[in-house]
């Protein structure tokens, strides 16, 4: 019965989406039209110094949006940490078998480096602070699962993560405030005098690498905190 209802609802939703799809002008939706996309494609690299235009849009044209997004993560982390009450100690898990531990040993450094690469090359190649930070967060989750939370919490302290997350939020705001002191709008990039460098090089694109680093730290610490708050238990339990 339940499944029949689910099937009917799914088909209904599919029909709605299909009818909406037929409303999109087929010939035009692949093309970039309108003023803003054309402007970004033509002048994006000069305006932002970033070869990866997606990151250019996220951290230059619409960096205030990105600030809002990272505030959303901040609020989510604060809420979850409040929900899973403080005063709980890490669950002393033994982790998985030693075979799993040795395989993950081999894997961990590479995952760490991939995360670092994705964050630091956000303005050149696909990726950025959010993606790289999430890769780092999955690293700590992997450690939690394979080695047990006790080991993970000794390796990366709980308070250190909290400090890191708050510090990254402050760093994000401070990078934005630099432009204010130069007399430009909040979070302006090249206009505020950040060195643009040669587009395509690692040190270029003004404040975009700094914002990427801050967002990466923030997302990694935040998501790791969320997972850690969820897996730990009260000392009496279990």
């Amino acid at each position, binding site marked *: 019965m339940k*499944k029949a209802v*689910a099937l009917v609802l*799914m088909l209904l939703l599919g029909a709605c989406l299909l009818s909406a799809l037929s409303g999109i002008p087929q010939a035009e939706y692949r093309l970039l039209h309108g003023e803003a996309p054309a402007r970004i494609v033509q002048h994006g690299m000069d305006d932002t110094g970033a070869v*990866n235009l*997606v*990151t250019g849009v996220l951290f230059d044209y619409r960096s205030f949006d990105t600030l809002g997004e990272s505030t959303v993560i901040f609020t989510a982390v604060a809420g979850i940490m409040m929900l899973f009450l403080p005063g709980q100690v890490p669950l002393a898990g033994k982790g998985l078998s030693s075979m799993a531990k040795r395989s993950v040993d081999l894997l961990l450094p590479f995952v760490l480096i991939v995360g670092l690469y*994705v964050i630091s090359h956000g303005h050149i190649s*696909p*990726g*950025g602070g*959010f*993606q790289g930070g*999430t*890769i780092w*967060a*999955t690293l700590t*989750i992997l450690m939690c*699962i394979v080695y047990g939370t006790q080991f993970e919490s000794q390796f990366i302290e709980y308070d250190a993560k909290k400090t890191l997350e708050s510090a990254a939020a402050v760093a994000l705001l401070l990078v934005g405030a630099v432009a204010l002191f130069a007399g430009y709008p909040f979070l302006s990039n090249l206009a505020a005098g950040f060195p643009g460098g040669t587009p395509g090089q690692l040190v270029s694109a003004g404040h975009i690498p700094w914002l990427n680093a801050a967002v990466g730290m923030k997302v990694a610490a935040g*998501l790791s905190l*969320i*997972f850690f708050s*969820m*897996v730990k238990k009260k000392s009496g339990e*279990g």
Partner: protein
Amino acid sequence: MESALISVLLVFLLGAASAAVFFDSILNSIISLGVFGALMAAVFVVYQAPDVAMAQAVVGAGLITSFFVVTLSKTSAGAKSEPE
């Protein structure tokens, strides 16, 4: 070539999504959702959106799955199937 690839991926997407809805066990549904996320990332790559694909691969296939599994093991549905 591209359209054939997309068609295959979309069929698998549909299969994974239906599996996530219709599986009896919640754990199976969660794993299907992870597969759905990974396939979605492949679709994004074919449509030349590597930034979105990367976020989708890490969040949709990695984080969501682990969060859901932890939530399941913390709730009554998980306690029944895997006693500690």
